[in-house]
């Protein structure tokens, strides 16, 4: 029983990381109907910046209580600038182009960011400075660490904040209006360009938070950590219903749990025929199955148009 509980905990932590990243995809998709392939790379940038800044600050003797918020702030700033720049340079000029065009640039931007990061930070893995003393707690025979609890809490708070922003503020209303119908929202006096920019700002700031959490949890950051993570988070967003914020939350947590339980039990379930080598397949299978049979996802109200 403790094994099952442990696998659920593993899955929920992994899932809350997926959920945080999935939010970025779902927000942009909701408003632009664009798969922002580069979002995973923004998370990577957030991780790399926060690790480098934190390492530099702690090496200079700055106390952790100050260094950690500063590193997060630096990551947020860099991610927001990158995100807005990407939107301005690569997506906005193509807003009325055929659908394939922004998708291809999105892939291009993703490759560019990855390789720029590689040239800037090198191919070495960066290690997250050991600023948080890991404490392990025993819960009914399973273990939870303080870092895991922190991740869960931060992810929950961030998502709560985002829901408030979208449902309770003027900006949020403008976002929802733009998502429903960009042209009409524009006619109603919503500055569509600003709303889209704001979406990228919020999404990139979330990516920075996710980057910091991921780097601190796994202890490492690397220039190619973003792509697969991005794909999985996108699958999570699709599972929950793309364009739907609670959906991203649900999809992320579910995907995390599915991967965890899948990797843990697939060997026993299939009598050893399949093993944990197929752990990465679940996300893609979910992606294909959901898109093919229920493109609106679990919570999506919007009926995704089929061509």
């Amino acid at each position, binding site marked *: 029983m403790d094994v099952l509980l442990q696998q659920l905990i593993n899955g929920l932590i992994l899932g809350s990381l997926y959920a945080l990243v999935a939010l970025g995809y779902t927000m942009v998709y909701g408003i632009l*109907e*664009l*798969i922002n392939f580069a979002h995973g790379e923004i998370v990577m940038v957030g991780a790399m910046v926060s690790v480098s800044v934190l390492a530099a600050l702690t090496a200079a003797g700055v106390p952790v209580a100050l260094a950690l918020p500063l590193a997060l702030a630096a990551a947020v700033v860099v991610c927001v600038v990158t995100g807005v720049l990407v939107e301005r*340079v*690569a997506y906005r*000029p*193509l807003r*009325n*182009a*055929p*659908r*394939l*065009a*922004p*998708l*291809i*640039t999105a*892939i*291009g*931007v*993703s*490759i*560019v960011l*990855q*390789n*720029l990061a*590689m*040239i800037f930070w090198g191919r070495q893995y960066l290690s997250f400075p050991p600023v948080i003393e890991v404490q392990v707690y025993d819960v009914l025979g399973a273990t939870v660490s303080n870092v895991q609890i922190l991740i869960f809490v931060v992810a929950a708070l961030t998502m709560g904040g985002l829901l408030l922003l979208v449902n309770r503020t003027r900006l949020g209303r403008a976002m929802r209006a733009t998502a429903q119908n960009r042209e009409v929202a524009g006619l109603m006096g919503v500055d569509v360009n600003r709303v889209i920019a704001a979406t990228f700002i919020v999404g990139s700031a979330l990516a920075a938070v996710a980057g910091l959490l991921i780097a601190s949890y796994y202890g490492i950051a690397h220039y190619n950590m973003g792509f697969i993570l991005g*794909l999985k988070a*996108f*699958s999570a967003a699709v599972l929950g219903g793309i364009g739907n914020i609670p959906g991203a939350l649900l999809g992320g947590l579910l995907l995390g749990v599915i991967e965890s339980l899948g990797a843990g039990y697939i060997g026993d379930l299939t009598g*050893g*025929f399949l*093993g944990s*080598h*197929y752990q*990465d*397949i679940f*996300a*893609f*299978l979910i*992606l*294909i199955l959901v*898109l*093919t049979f229920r*493109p609106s996802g679990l919570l999506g109200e919007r009926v*995704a*148009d*089929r*061509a």
Partner: protein
Amino acid sequence: MAWAAFGVLAVLLIALPFLVEAGLGRTWVRILDFAMLYVMLALGLNIVVGFAGLLDLGYVAFYAVGAYFYAILASPQFGLHLPFWALLPMGAGIACFFGVLLGTPTLRLRGDYLAIVTLGFGEIIRIFLNNLNAPVNVTNGPQGINMIDPVRIGGHALTRPIEILGVQLSGPHAHYYLFLGLTLFVIFAAIRLQHSRIGRAWAAIREDEVAAEAMGIHTRNVKLLAFAMGATFGGLGGGLFAAFQGFVSPESFTLMESIMILCMVVLGGMGHIPGVILGAVLLTMLPEALRYVGPLQQELIGRVAVDPADLRMLLFGVALVLVMLFRPQGLWPSPMRARELRPDNPDQVRQEQESLYDAER
């Protein structure tokens, strides 16, 4: 006149490996072989992306299927050594089958969903190839399959040097002529397809699917056909790759390979066959050209600031973005497509955009 031009071209193509060898060394003959291979692959993907306007990010899966099909049936893996000429079309057929298998449920999806689903499919195929060494060893897992039989023509293995009419032909030279023949066949097939009824139906779907359907085109079948044709060429390229290289492993079939082939199509000019050929040749040569970037940096700024190997993918990414922003028709666009994408008459643009807008809503 036209015949004379053809004659000159033919002589040039036949003499090319010897010219290249004399000028640049035999290494470049091997690079030329790879260039041909990528021309075939890029032309295959061009059917899907360029003709029918469906973004396929998992194209490498079909390439992998073709390569592994040949590798498994013509290597010590199962002790089977079936003949190349039988396996090559069968491999292409199997790849075609996989294309239909993937396409049937997914082609209803809208463009960007389709792209991401094909990407997932490509990864799934790679993961299976990487892990199907147990419980039954089919693909030999991450170790890959080695000692794959070379192409044989009349009992002669193409990797061995041979003398024909007093001319010494090395392995890469012989492969060049084989690949050239098949590339010409693929080019011919692509041209015929483009100008057939199906080709026009693809173009119609690409431009406006709703209108195409209204005109009585059975869009799903026609799209499926594009997928199947593209996959077939991918499988063909895979079989040739396996026989030429003698070794396949899942590492050769990553997402980056798919993106590189896509890059060839986009850079050269989506939908325009000469452009795609140009794109494939240019991008195959790129890594070789980048070898000189290191010494060049050394000379100009006194040190190697950026490792040339690191530049390759960066350039691919930059090329994708720049081409889509400033020259969506590609380096060598088809005259018609160029007019569509870059009309001189701004009124026409507005008019077209409005009509597109109407169709989309």
